[in-house]
């Protein structure tokens, strides 16, 4: 049978013809209308999200009277000094603390997490499933439950009211998620490479350091971003586990700033803007990794 008189092809062609024909003006109009309605809806939603954030940044530039009298308009006088004052009133120190705590926590999570993920993905040994189960169960536990016991434990081991009081619990609580993500990625790395490396006389550390880590770069980047975001934004532990204002991270430091500068809204808002901005910028720059990390697994902060 030649293609020409094949009934299947004919039906296919007919269908296509029918489809093209069946897009009359009314459908086009309906599509257009649908598009417009959705765009309006999405735009309103987008404004509801962006406007408060822009308002925050702009109000941070206003004097107090300007803020009260002209809530909506642009600043009469652009007081960049508010940002400087907020920075000097404590945001600078909080910022430094947040950076320190975040960087150390992320490095520790990546190192310990990737080692554990390596051990759990490239080896078979007795007790492996139990270890994996215990680690992954850590994903489900609410931090509130650990708040008081951790507070006592940290006091007992002398970490309370130090940077370590934040770093150690952050690392412990972020590890399960990081291990979960990295393990599934490492499992997908083919075994041939490591086999030939071992024949060449590499020990397991060399395999980990020279093969698995370089090949795992994409997932390590995702883990770094998600861990960094969670640690940067953490509030409850930071509120309870350090006492000195000089050790506070940004989220808690802002509460201090609020009570200090009860009536000076411009400076308060400038402080909030400084706190929000780094994560927004990081997100916009590293969007792809964020999405990749999210699609690999999903746990809310």
């Amino acid at each position, binding site marked *: 049978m030649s293609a020409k008189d094949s009934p299947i092809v004919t039906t296919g062609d007919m269908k296509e013809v029918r*489809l093209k024909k069946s897009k009359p003006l009314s459908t086009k109009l309906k599509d257009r209308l*649908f*598009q417009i309605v*959705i765009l309006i809806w*999405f735009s309103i*939603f*987008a404004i*509801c*999200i*962006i406007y408060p954030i822009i308002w925050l940044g702009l109000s941070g530039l206003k004097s107090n009277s300007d*803020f009260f009298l002209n809530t*909506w308009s642009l600043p009469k006088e652009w007081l960049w000094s508010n940002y400087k004052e907020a920075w000097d009133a404590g945001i600078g120190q909080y910022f430094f603390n947040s950076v320190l705590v975040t960087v150390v926590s992320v490095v520790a999570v990546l190192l*310990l997490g990737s080692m*554990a993920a390596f*051990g759990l993905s490239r*080896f*078979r*040994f007795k*007790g*492996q499933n139990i270890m994996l189960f*215990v*680690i*992954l169960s*850590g*994903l*489900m*536990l*609410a931090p*509130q*439950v*650990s*708040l*008081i*016991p951790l507070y*006592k*434990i940290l006091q007992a081991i002398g970490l309370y009211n130090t940077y370590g009081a934040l770093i150690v619990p952050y690392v*412990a*609580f972020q*590890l399960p998620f990081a291990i979960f993500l990295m393990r599934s990625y490492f499992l997908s790395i083919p075994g041939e490479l490591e*086999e030939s490396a071992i024949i060449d006389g590499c020990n*397991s550390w060399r395999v980990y350091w020279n093969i698995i880590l370089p090949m795992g770069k994409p997932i390590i980047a995702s883990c770094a971003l998600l861990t960094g*975001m969670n640690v940067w*934004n953490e*509030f*409850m532990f930071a509120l*309870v586990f350090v006492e000195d204002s000089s050790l506070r991270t*940004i*989220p*808690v430091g802002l509460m201090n700033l*609020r009570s200090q500068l009860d009536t000076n809204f411009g400076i*308060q808002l400038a402080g*909030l803007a400084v*706190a*929000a901005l780094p994560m*927004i910028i990081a*997100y916009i720059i590293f*969007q792809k990794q964020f*999405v990749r990390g999210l699609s690999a697994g999903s*746990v*809310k902060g």
Partner: protein
Amino acid sequence: MKTLRYNRIAILYILPAFLLILSFVFLPIVYNLYNSMFRWSSFDAAKTFVGFNYYGRLFKDPVFYISLKNNSLYAVISLVFQVGGGLVIAAVMEDKLIRKFQPFFRTVFFIPSVISIAVVGLMWQLLYNPEIGLVNGFLHAIGHSRWAHSWLGDSNTAIFAVIFVSQWQYTGYMAMLFLISMQKIPAEYYEAAMIDGASKIKTFLKITIPQIREMILVGTVITVIGAFKVFDEVYVMTGGGPGRSTEVLGTMLYRAAFRNDEMGYASAIGTVIFIITLILSLLQMKLGKSGQEV
């Protein structure tokens, strides 16, 4: 061939992380249960054994029921907005007619979820401010001044005002999760539906939803568990007030421990949070066969 498989050395790689998780995530839960059976203060080493008395007291405490009600409200409203709303938004974003605008809206909708809850809470506290806030300002501007209100100051509206902020912050996050799993659905399914002349709503109900069922389930459980873990936004915006109308389990625990210095009572609240989140997590593992996997 000699490979890494079947090697006990693996334990050395896992041990540091494992011990850290064990001692700072799991040990505290056991210690918490123990603590809940004593009357003790954070300033005093002495502990008096009280058994399960604190649990008895908790179940008689009216604030406990306010908290449970508020956590449940959180869960229900978040399910409607974040899971329901997020699903619809994701599906619409995937529509051919909108798709070219998708990257822009996706980015914008997601932004609030990268900002700290504490910052978002402080910002909304100002937006809700009865005199200077934009919420009332907007109502005046559209001529509905009689709706203007002290949103966080009125015990009838405060909890809804707080819950709304979470919807503002996380609906885009959920939409993003749904979007990611929708993009894994084979395009042929939609083409076939189109040839059959199925409407958009029908396609959504018959193809999109069943195909991402697993993700919807995971999103539902994450949202519900999240609703019982709420702390930051309530603490920042209302501190549980006015009165105790916005108290949730998390703030109730914090107040008992660090305001009233009733560590044993607070620990008992901790155990209740543990049990609720544990049950929900087990449910998630049972329903979604892959557990945490998305």
